[in-house]
């Protein structure tokens, strides 16, 4: 009786990828937006179930290796899933599925019915490629999926109703292509040296080439390429526009997943492919990463404080928050890495929720400028309530998810006796209070403009996902087994492997 389920379980890694990848073309075949949405939603929630099942299998350590098409690695393509992979998978699928659920209502106002199915197709492709990047154990595959995700993302952004979305998408296209090309060059150099593309195989063969200039060049190309993808300061300029002009709920998905997956690739390559000793010892990555990430945190937070468009403000805050994660990696100790991995998950959750709540407001006001959101706390109390909880989480108030990641980050800085860094982190939190407070102040305490005095609460299909995000933010502020607990094990694995 257990024959079929156990076979199914063995095939889970492939199913995880195929669910969304196959649902995409099916969606495109229908010209019926609602039907496509149903297919896409079912596929993405099935993919969440799959991610949970995989997380369950690797929980507490251990990893799954799956041979695609039955070809053994290093010749065939290998899929590797360990705890870090599983948490990123969960992040992509769960938050993607939540946004997908809210997407129908959000899109209905800006897109003709027939066009919607193509949009869902792109969305699913984007999700599938992000899943692919996460689970693959093959360096070249990372590049392939990275390209698919970039192409899908350009389309998603360009669908914004504002003309400026086109330029934003174009810039993202240029930058994304350069980033991907650099990563390809880096992988090519490694292939030249070792003759293999399998990550595990690479990590075994690279140490003998540590003094080779080609490997150094490869590392430089990789760092710049991935820094572009992660939107690390000062290569972040594509991000605010891309987030601001992308349509509606899509921003929530992009903000939650795209940069986080790139960050995951960064962690994978630095720790598992190049090796910690090479990256931080020989290449001195820390001396570059620490000042840049701190500068990014401060400059982006400060910039966020002075924005007058809610979407752009949150986009700048994302740049700052990515700085936290980069700093966590650069600290190179258990607490720092724990914070980076935890914050990856927590920030994805909070920022997706914030953008979704904002999309719900924009659904009614048709504008994301702060002025048009004034007094919205009275007309849309539930949406604003969720927004407030998520915002408080982003600041890092105790008993919200944001506190956990900041706590580990400050602890990591103190473990290194970097008191000034800890102080700067506190200062950046104060800036977060300023920019979130600015928005809440406008939403709750300013009188509503007369044309929006009568607007109604957002539709339930958007509100419920918003509140799920808000409640998760509170839940992960208290129960940290899934986030910080797992991240702690991941951190000791990554550091122990060196």
């Amino acid at each position, binding site marked *: 009786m257990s024959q079929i389920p156990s076979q199914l379980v063995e095939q889970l890694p492939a199913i995880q990828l195929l669910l969304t990848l196959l649902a995409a073309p099916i969606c495109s075949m229908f010209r019926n937006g609602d039907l496509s949405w149903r297919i896409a939603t079912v596929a993405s929630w099935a993919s969440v179930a799959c991610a949970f099942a995989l997380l369950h299998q690797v929980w507490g350590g251990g990893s799954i290796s799956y041979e695609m098409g039955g070809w053994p690695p290093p010749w065939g393509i290998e899929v590797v899933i360990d705890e870090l992979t599983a948490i990123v998978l969960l992040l992509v699928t769960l938050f993607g599925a939540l946004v997908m659920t809210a997407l129908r209502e959000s899109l209905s106002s800006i897109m003709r019915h027939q066009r919607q199915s193509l949009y869902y197709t792109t969305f699913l492709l984007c999700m599938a490629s992000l899943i692919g990047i996460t689970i693959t154990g093959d360096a070249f595959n990372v590049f392939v999926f990275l390209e698919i995700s970039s192409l899908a993302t350009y389309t998603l952004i360009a669908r914004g109703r504002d003309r400026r979305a086109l330029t934003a998408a174009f810039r993202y296209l240029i930058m994304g292509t350069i980033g991907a090309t650099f990563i390809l060059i880096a992988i090519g150099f490694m292939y030249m040296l070792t003759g293999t593309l399998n990550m595990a195989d690479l990590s075994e063969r690279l140490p003998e080439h540590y003094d080779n200039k080609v490997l150094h060049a490869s590392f430089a190309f990789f760092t710049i390429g991935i820094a572009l993808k992660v939107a690390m300061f000062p290569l972040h300029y594509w991000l605010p526009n891309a987030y601001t002009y992308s349509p509606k709920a899509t921003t929530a998905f992009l903000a939650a997943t795209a940069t986080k997956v790139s960050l995951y690739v960064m962690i994978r390559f630095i720790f598992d492919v190049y090796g910690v000793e090479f990256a931080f010892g020989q*290449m001195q990555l820390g001396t570059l990463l620490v000042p840049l990430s701190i500068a990014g945190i401060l*400059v982006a937070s400060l910039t966020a404080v*002075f924005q007058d468009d809610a979407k752009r403000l949150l986009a700048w805050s994302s740049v700052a928050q990515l700085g936290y994660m980069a700093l966590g990696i650069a600290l190179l100790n258990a607490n720092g890495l724990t914070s980076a991995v935890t914050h990856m998950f927590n920030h994805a959750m909070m920022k997706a929720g914030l953008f979704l709540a904002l999309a719900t407001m924009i659904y009614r006001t048709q504008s994301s400028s702060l002025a048009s959101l004034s007094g919205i706390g009275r007309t849309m109390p539930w949406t604003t309530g969720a927004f407030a909880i998520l915002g408080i989480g982003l600041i890092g108030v105790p008993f919200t998810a944001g506190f956990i990641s900041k*706590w580990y980050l400050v602890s990591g800085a103190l473990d290194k006796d970097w008191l000034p860094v800890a102080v700067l982190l506190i200062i950046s939190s104060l800036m977060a209070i300023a920019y979130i407070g600015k928005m809440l102040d406008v939403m709750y305490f300013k009188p509503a403009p007369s044309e929006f005095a009568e607007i109604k609460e957002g539709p339930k299909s958007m509100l419920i996902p918003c509140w799920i995000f808000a409640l998760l933010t509170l839940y992960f502020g208290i129960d940290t087994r899934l986030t910080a607990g797992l991240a702690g094990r991941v951190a000791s694995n990554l550091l122990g492997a060196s």
Partner: protein
Amino acid sequence: MIEGLNPALILIIGALLVPLFPQPWRRVYVIALPLVSMLQLVLHPYGSFAEASIYNVPLETFRLDNLSFIFGLIFHIAAVLGVIYAIHDDDPIHPTAGLIYAGAAIGAAFAGDLITLFVYWELTAISSVFLIWARRTESAFKAGMRYLVIQIGSGVILLAGVVLHYRETGFISFNEMNLESIGGKLIFLAFGIKCAFPFLHNWLQDSYPEATASGTVLLSAFTTKLAVYALARGYAGTDMLIWIGALMTAFPIFFAVIENDLRRVLAYSLNNQLGFMVVAVGIGTPLALNGAAAHAFCHILYKALLFMSMGAVLLRTGTCKGSELGGLYKSMPFTTVCCIIGAASISAFPLFSGFVSKSMIVSAVAGEHLTFVWLMLIFASAGVFHHSGIKIPYFAFFAHDSGIRCEEAPLSMRVAMGISAALCIGIGVFPGVLYSILPYPVDYVPYTAAHVITQLQLLMYSALAFTVMMLWKIYPPELRSTNLDTDWFYRKGATAALLPVTALAGQTTDSLFTALAKLKDRTLGLFDKTVGPGAWLSRSVDSSGMVALTMGSLLVFLLLYLL
């Protein structure tokens, strides 16, 4: 009794349901709720319960021992009296916020670790501000905001202190701490703000008189006494507290005598009474700590009684200004009697509650041979009699007849005042009952000849001074109606001495603010140019610019790695 169930949770969760009850049942419910919770407390055995853990830090959310029991008990009594007092009011905000506030204070008193303490500490701040806002006036709203900022600030400082303390010591339990580490200092400061230490006290006089009539009764009971409890738990025997406390007993007297708003006078005298408790905590001997706990217990009762009587006056006449009141004893005889009982208790007349607790503290000070502190306390005792014992009842109910004729206080207020007054006298006559629940064994006899005679001398001479003042009543009635004549020296002296200081301070702050405003304008201008919308750091860079930036970065990296 359910073992391990924290009474605070009964109150807080129960309070959230208050608005759901329709009116006649709500009255029953809000009185029953604190009584049920009190029953749970009284029947509960001592020990540590409801242990949990968060972020792998062990928590002890319900710790019942000698010290926390007496504070938990008096907080319950105050909650019961507070809701009875306000039962005539249909506004659901008052019982809801009031009971959450009481529950938070009780939860904080039962907190066995600093994280739980922090949670309840902030909850007292957030819940209590609604008692101020419930008055629904512009000035109450603003005062509430100021209050909230300071109270939340205290919580944030507490959290910072707790985090540092935990990093330094590795312990999170709420026990004795010291002032040597930064964490310990911050926690002490957080406690000090809530305890209204000198120069940190202004929030109290600012906000309490702005709250509703019944709101002030509850406010006066919890926040500051919680801080006294926290100090007794964490910093008993810290010498610095003796001097802080002594200063606290003395300085509010000067402000109280020149104040016209009678509820503000009471707020000052609240500060003065806290000083006695802080001194006792600073001494830290079993006798002194007993005195602090006993005084907190009695103080909550008689201070609530005084605020209740003034609240009744406010409700019936619409004002609490000494200059506008007078002669109310004809209209409100019951309130007058209760106010006099409260005044006698706060002045520590023998056979009233203040006597049996305050004399413990004064004896503890004498036992440590702290002569100067002892003299300050004696001076403060006389001062209390002036502004609370005489000024409050005299200006409100006697003095120059203001001509106001109003109804007696509503039944609910009279019941609450009656119970409080009975408790004040009961404790004064039978101190053994109170002594039996004090944290340490008591072998103290309040009614010795020496104690009684000292206290009576003090009071009699104060009364004599008052009589002399009465004889000088040839002064125009306007003057008498605002201030006590005997305090003329204080008043003139204080004003004369303070005038240049305040003028200087005013000038300094003025110039400081001008400078700050200039600085703000300049920095904002700078920010607008650099990070404002469309400025160089935040503007959108076009593709070629971004590519150039990327190439530049790559070049830097390559040069760095390859050379």
